[in-house]
């Protein structure tokens, strides 16, 4: 961990402005990912802007019948919220499938979206990694890649986004609200927040320098049977090999988003038309451009089989 300066922001816009002023500033919220990365010198901010205590920790019903979730709402609080449990059950289930009770108490909504990959090569600073040291190469390709991505990846990076929460939000068509250093605000569909790696895997989101997420909004409830199925090597406290957030309606139509397979929550809307034809057709369409390694090729049949089980469960 490098020495850093610290300030407590007084408003979201001031936090954004402060981040723009300092060349190597980072926002700190729950810190469950950032502090680990700082200890390992993977993140080396010179300035931390604390955004806790800005009043961004409320969950409010929005005029359109949806929900507005403050960026600082803790994962535990979000998962336990009555409205979330009733109307957005897939989100509650996804949250509770992630991390541990202690981490969820600390981790925030925006921080969860912005957490970085768990690729083991990203975590070892002696190893080449295009995400950590652009241009140094990807050691995961041809290395230990069992956990890593099969779709949306590139020759420069095969890392996955580790979030469960974000997968559910993708299925729910969530939108991210931000404030920029110039005090302007914008809304970004959660689908567009994360970038695919291409040749620049170190650029992970579309957020501008200093841009701060202030809330995540959910549109009005869509009903249906909402399932989050996380497949993993142990029963708890493990990242997904594959996960599925599903919202399935009585007529067999639905939405499917995948975790554990791509650099971002993976949803292919056009593939959802295949759902009434069953898991095989839908999985093939969702993973049409998959390029797995020898070690993670099992994720393709695993998605199909898991989707089959999810659809069967939804049918009841």
């Amino acid at each position, binding site marked *: *961990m*490098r*020495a850093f300066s610290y300030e407590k922001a007084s408003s979201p816009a001031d936090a954004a402005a402060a981040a723009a002023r300092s060349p190597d500033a980072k926002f700190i919220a729950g810190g469950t990912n950032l502090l680990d990365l700082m*200890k390992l*010198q993977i993140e080396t901010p010179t300035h931390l802007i604390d955004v806790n205590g800005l009043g961004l920790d409320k969950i409010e019903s929005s005029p359109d019948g949806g929900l507005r979730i403050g960026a600082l709402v803790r994962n535990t609080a979000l998962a336990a919220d009555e409205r979330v449990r009733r109307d957005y059950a897939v989100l509650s289930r996804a949250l509770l499938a992630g991390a541990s009770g202690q981490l969820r108490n600390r981790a925030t909504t925006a921080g969860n979206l912005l957490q970085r990959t*768990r690729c*083991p*090569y990203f*975590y*070892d*600073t*002696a*190893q080449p990694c295009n995400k950590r040291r652009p241009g140094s190469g990807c*050691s995961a390709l*041809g*290395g*230990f890649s*069992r*956990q890593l991505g099969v779709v949306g990846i590139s020759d420069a990076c095969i890392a996955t986004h580790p979030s469960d929460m974000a997968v559910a939000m993708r299925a729910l068509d969530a939108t991210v609200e931000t404030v920029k250093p110039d005090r302007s605000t914008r809304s970004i569909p959660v689908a567009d927040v994360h970038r695919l790696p291409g040749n620049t895997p170190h650029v992970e989101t579309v957020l501008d320098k200093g841009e701060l997420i202030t809330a995540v909004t959910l549109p009005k409830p869509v009903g249906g049977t909402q399932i989050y199925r996380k*497949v*993993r*090597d*142990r*029963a*708890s*406290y*493990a*990242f997904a*090999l594959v996960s599925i957030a599903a919202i399935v309606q009585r007529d067999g139509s639905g939405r499917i988003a995948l975790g554990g397979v791509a650099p971002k929550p993976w949803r292919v809307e056009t593939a959802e038309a295949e759902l009434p034809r069953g898991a095989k057709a839908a999985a093939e369409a969702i993973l049409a451009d998959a390029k797995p390694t020898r070690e993670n090729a*099992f994720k393709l*049949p*695993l998605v199909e*089989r*898991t989707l*089959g*089980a999810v659809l*069967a469960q939804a049918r009841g």
Partner: protein
Amino acid sequence: MKFDKPATDNPIDRLQVVGQPHDRIDGARKVTGTARYAYEQHDVVANQAYGYVLGAGIAKGRIASIELDAARKAPGVLAVVTAREAGDLKKGPRNTACLLAGPEVEHYHQAVALVVAESFEQARAAASLIKVEYVAAEGAFDLNAAKDKAVRPEGDDPSLNDTHVGDFAGAFASAPVSLDETYTTPDESHAMMEPHATLAAWEGDKLTLWTATQMVAWGVTDMATTLGIPKQNIRIVSPFIGGGFGGKLFLRADVLLAALGARLAKRPVKVALTRPLMINNTTHRPATIQRIRLGATKEGKITAIGHESWSGDLKGGGPEVAVQQTRLLYAGANRMTAMRLAELDLPEGNAMRAPGEAPGLMALEMAMDEMAEKLGMDPIAFRLLNDTQVDPEKPKRPFSMRRFDECFRVGAERFGWSQRSAQPGRMREGNWLIGLGVAAAFRNNLVMKSGARVSLDAKGIVTVETDMTDIGTGSYTIIGQTASEMLGVDLDKVVVKLGDSAFPVSAGSGGQWGGNSSTAGVYAACVKLREAVAQKLGINSTEAIFAGGEVKAGNRSLSLASATEAGPLTAEDTIEYGDLDETHQQSTFGAHFVEVGVDVATAETRVRRMLAVCAAGRILNPKTARSQVIGAMTMGVGAALMEELAVDKRRGFFVNHDLASYEVPVHADIPHQEVVFLDETDPMSSPMKAKGVGELGICGVGAAVANAVYNATGVRVRDYPLTLDKLLARMPDAA
């Protein structure tokens, strides 16, 4: 005391204290944070500084240059140690690689430098400023690729020899029913909670090390050799250890570098290894490739049994002795075993909980399950048909005690084994395919010389001192119970002091020998103290009964404390063993029963319930022994289902070097566990009539899980761990 004849009746047999499920006498200290672990010894010496170890970024090669200026100038930095500053270091006899690299690098994360600073954070930040240029060399990192070049391990140890009894090849070729299969087990990490950690302080040429070690005396010897200083100048203090599992048997880089850092900085220095360094800098359980051949008559009598194992290690290292149980577990006139060792440039392999038997039984006991199916026999019936009361290689040599059959019979009854379907894939509950599996547990009982000092003061307080360690096993408690029983005082009148090289040398903690051997040493010292007390009180020690804080002989009854009128009494002795473990094979036995559910769609395996039945001599404390066994069962589930150090075969290191990526079971993975100890005393083992149990608990668990997975699914996976990707393609249709 020389133990060379079977034990007869002695005061331990009263079982007023020994054999009772006492709570840990150190429990309150542990849960209140007042049991100080090595890194928490904040007040034993003033002015402590912090060291941070930098590990090598290559697996093999040479350090071309190392730039320390930036680190030395960093805030708070007091000293930087590299091989250059360290001067001439020897290698301890129990280390394979050097603990400090330079100029050669022998494995990934071998220590390259130690930065000493005023704070931990400063040391860590400064370590990142060190620039090391390496010249990498080609290395061998793939056991499978190196297998054909593997050779018989070097050394005079007869256990490394190939074994041949009868005509294995002929009997195997002509057997009506046979099996020839290959099984693999991966590299595994001990993954104990407490890292390797040491606080070192010099006073002139005297060095004190507060550290976390299983073997205090080995640490002193190897440190003296490494530094080239006399043993008597080194004191090791290791009162509490947060888990070891074999990972803390040997001198590691934290000890050496803390001492070197303290010498250079002229300050006490504490060093803990980070989790990545624990995995690539220290030792691990080596991967194996095991070939098992079994031949049997149609009725299921084994006629040929062969077990070969391949493993790898750094040059000068040793093999995983995965075949040793196969020499003893089952009858059969024609037998062979062999081990081959490949030279690999991965980090150093060495002992991890039940070295040899743990991976060996994962293979053998899966093969036995497969063979039973070929024979159309129940797997328990097949095992019991091939039970033996004698060493199968030397039929005149009996087991001291072997209640192998009873373990299975008791277990089958309690577990409801009769509910198992012999046809796999037949039991289903919702999305879960249900399977039952069984495997034998077997681990040799090793007896080790062990010393203790016992004293009695005027208040009737008995103090035991021995360099024995408590690595979470309950040593404090069973040693206290032993002294309490022997001297007839309540347990709260016994003070137990452990883990200090100033105390008599004990067996230490390893190889499941610690419990039996260390209490036997305390027994010996207590016998001497009883004699001293009797003499002071003028009574015949053979007639004296020590009970209730008094000594009784005939009609006389005197308080124990009255023996100290002329001053405290102290006695010291060492238990030493004769040849009872030569004339008799001493082993511990058990049967593991496991029920699993396998998700029919995803092939995720979750254990539903487990039972272990153990026959392991006298159980000194059923509560701490049970904790040992359920912990070992948990570790066995890890080995079966998830634990694997992932080798990067290009770069030569274990990639998943933290506890987020090296998965061990969490609470949610471990369901109902039951442990049954058969009521047993083995007079051949020691005056305590006890044996080891801490490693028996892991032996066979992996195979029991794997056999249950097969019973659930009909899919046989012979490569551990049984992760879902290995099952998926062959899983039955989900619908």
